[in-house]
């Protein structure tokens, strides 16, 4: 299919201090109905969106961390994380959630689509996308 476009959602903001992370997530969930090739990129404070262990019980905020784990079911194929941004924040892949992906027809499975990339790789991936949505 030649009309399948590569969509890239670029996330650069921390999850709770502003509405961007949740808005991005909602757009990805809605956009999943359109059968495009969808990837997410997490850069700068955006990497905080994937940190596990969030507990909002004392904050009166909705904990939407669990929602990221269903993105594979919504057809998201890749979740790229800029390694330099992660390291600058004292974090490693072990601090991040895992998101599984499965092709329901072929039953092909990927245990974790969260993948660290070097900055030049990230730049290339963004450049190769047909559309980049920034949040």
């Amino acid at each position, binding site marked *: 299919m030649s009309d399948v476009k590569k969509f890239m959602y670029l996330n650069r903001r921390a999850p709770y201090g502003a509405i961007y992370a949740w808005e991005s997530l*909602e757009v990805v*969930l*809605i956009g*999943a*109905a359109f059968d495009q090739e969808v990837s997410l990129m997490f850069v700068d404070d955006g990497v905080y969106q994937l940190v596990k262990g969030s507990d909002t019980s004392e904050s009166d905020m*909705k*904990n*939407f961390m*669990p*929602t990221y*784990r*269903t993105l594979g*079911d*919504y057809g998201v194929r890749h979740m790229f994380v800029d390694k330099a941004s992660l390291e600058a924040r004292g974090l490693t892949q072990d601090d991040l959630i895992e998101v599984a992906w499965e092709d*329901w027809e072929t039953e092909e499975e990927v245990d974790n689509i969260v993948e660290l990339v070097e900055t030049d790789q990230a730049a290339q991936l963004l450049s190769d996308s047909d559309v980049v949505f920034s949040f």
Partner: protein
Amino acid sequence: MGTITVDGKELEVDEEGYLANINDWVPGVAEVMAKEDELELTDEHWDIINFLREYYEEYQIAPAVRVLTKAVGKKLGKDKGNSKYLYGLFPYGPGKQACRYAGLPKPTGCV
């Protein structure tokens, strides 16, 4: 905002009939809503309602219909993982109607 009466208790619902507070949910909510729709709830309905509640518990959102369809097929058998089967059970739409019975918010992207 309106209310529905379940087990003698008044529960708040929004203008489209969805439960205002998901924590208010008891099985009687589904029974009362189904009765209003003149629908008899069977085990097959409950399979979907329970599935939706488990999905919400794990991911904190109501699934889109196509995600629901696929997941039901995987969990309850391929013969049930299609929209014909789900619409047969929930004629007003599996996303909207079943989520409402399950006490979930309206699925994201569902208009």
